[in-house]
Structures are given as structure tokens and as C-alpha cells.
């Protein structure tokens, strides 16, 4: 019983540590993407480059989101990642007044396949940045 408890608690601690790594990387990835989104669109510098946020975000997320589908969403902070299946996360970039926001939301997969059905770990990260201004 002691051994079983030890194994269970150790597994829970390792899972929590793994989730912390995934969430920290999501925060870094969102910060990377929102800087691109807050910049000007090629050929139209006064319009935020929302479509450009996805690629740098996905590149960073791929390294820690094992067995997870990463998709580009079109929603805002409230609607991003709603109704997604397990092991899927969504990346959404959107305007928010003078700011530009990026949200990463969903339930990542877990290295041990059936475990992600049991663990409540979710990623829900939002960052915002002021749009870049250009001299008129």
C-alpha cells in the first residue's frame, strides 16, 4: 500500500511538472506570436498582422506538445478553443481595441495515451500587446 501510494504521488508530481513545462512554453509561444501579430501587415503597416502569429507560435509549441493537434483559430479571447476534442489546442490572434491579443487554449495530449482522459490539465494562456505605431 505504501509502495502504491508512493508510485501514485510520484506519478502525479511528474505529471504536474510536465504540465508546468507545457504551460510555460505556451506562454513563451504566445508572447512570440503576439509580437508578430502586433506588427504591421506586409504592404499595409497600419493593419495588425494577425495571420502571422500562428507560425512562430506553432514552432515553439511543437517541441513540448506531444501527440497534440495544434490548429489556427479565428475566435477572440472568449470564444477561442471552445468545443475542441481532447489532445487539441487552438491558437487565436485578434484585435482588442488598440491592443492585439493572442490566446492558446485546449487540452494537450499526454505521453501516456490514456492518461489524458483522466488528468484535468488544460492550457489557457492569453497575452496582449499594443499595436506598433508607424509615422504618418
Amino acid at each position, binding site marked *: 500500500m505504501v509502495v502504491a501510494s508512493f508510485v501514485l*504521488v510520484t506519478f502525479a*508530481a511528474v505529471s504536474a511538472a510536465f504540465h508546468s513545462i507545457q504551460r510555460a512554453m505556451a506562454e513563451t509561444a504566445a508572447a512570440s506570436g503576439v*509580437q508578430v501579430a502586433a506588427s504591421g501587415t506586409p504592404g499595409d503597416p497600419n493593419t495588425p498582422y494577425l495571420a502571422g502569429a500562428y507560425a512562430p507560435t506553432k514552432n515553439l509549441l511543437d517541441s513540448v506538445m506531444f501527440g497534440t493537434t495544434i490548429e489556427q483559430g479565428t475566435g477572440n479571447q472568449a470564444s477561442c478553443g471552445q468545443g475542441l476534442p481532447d489532445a487539441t489546442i487552438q491558437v487565436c490572434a485578434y484585435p482588442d481595441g488598440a*491592443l492585439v491579443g493572442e490566446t492558446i487554449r485546449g487540452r494537450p495530449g499526454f505521453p501516456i495515451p490514456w492518461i489524458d482522459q483522466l488528468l484535468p490539465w488544460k492550457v489557457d494562456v492569453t497575452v*496582449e500587446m*499594443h499595436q506598433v505605431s508607424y509615422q504618418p
Partner: protein
Amino acid sequence: MRRTRSGGQALIETAVTLPVLIALFLGFLAAGVGAQGYVDLNTAVYLAAASNVTAFAGDQPLAMQYATDTFDATVSHDTLLRKVGFNCPAPPSDYAAGGQVVCTGSAVLEFSKTPLAVVVPVDPTISATATATRSAYRSCPPNTVGAC
């Protein structure tokens, strides 16, 4: 008889070790939440400094508005962080073209909003600092007279 003794011994061992193991697990979780809060604050300050240097050179109020808007909006999305302060003071910040800006933000990490308050009874104040360099070619605000 032996079985009863053995079962009793296992029960006592479990009763002694389980609370320790649970405390260890909660400690791991608290460390994870603390790291998460620090990463979030660090990201908010980093993005705020990056926003600051996108404002026109020499326009400190506008640059501070960009930075503060960015910091406030990003911190507000973390339910466990409560803003304490944010500033990019000059000096040491240099708001001229090519100057370096140093921003510092602090927030209270509210463990008291979570069940982890059992193992972390106080809400610590954490802080982060970020630097960013304004482009040497960043232009002055429109209608500026003289250097900026």
C-alpha cells in the same frame, strides 16, 4: 494471526507516510504554480518593454501608455496575479532614438485563491525586469522641434 499483524503494520506505515507524500505533492504543485506566476509576470514585463520601444522616440508619456496598457492587459488574464506596480523610469531608461528602456513590474501571487493556501499560507509579491532597445532609426513624433 500473522496476517492481522502484517495488515496492521501496513496500515500504520501508510498512515504515517501518506500525509508526508501528500504534503510533498502539494509542495510540487505550489512550486509549479509559483513558477507559472513568475513566467506570466516575466512575459507581461517583457512585452510591455517591447511595446514601450515601438512608440516615437522622445515621447515618454506615449511610450509609458503603450507599455502600461500591454502590462495591465496581459496580467489581467492571469487570475492568480494582482498588479502591484509597473514603471519604466528615466533614468535609467533612455527614451531617445537608440536608447535602452528598463521596465520593472511587480504583482502579488494569490495562493489564497487556491487550495494550495494550505501549504503556502502567504501571498508572496514577485517582480520581474526587462530591457528593450529603441530603434536608432525610430522617428520623432510629428511636429517635433529639435532633437528628441
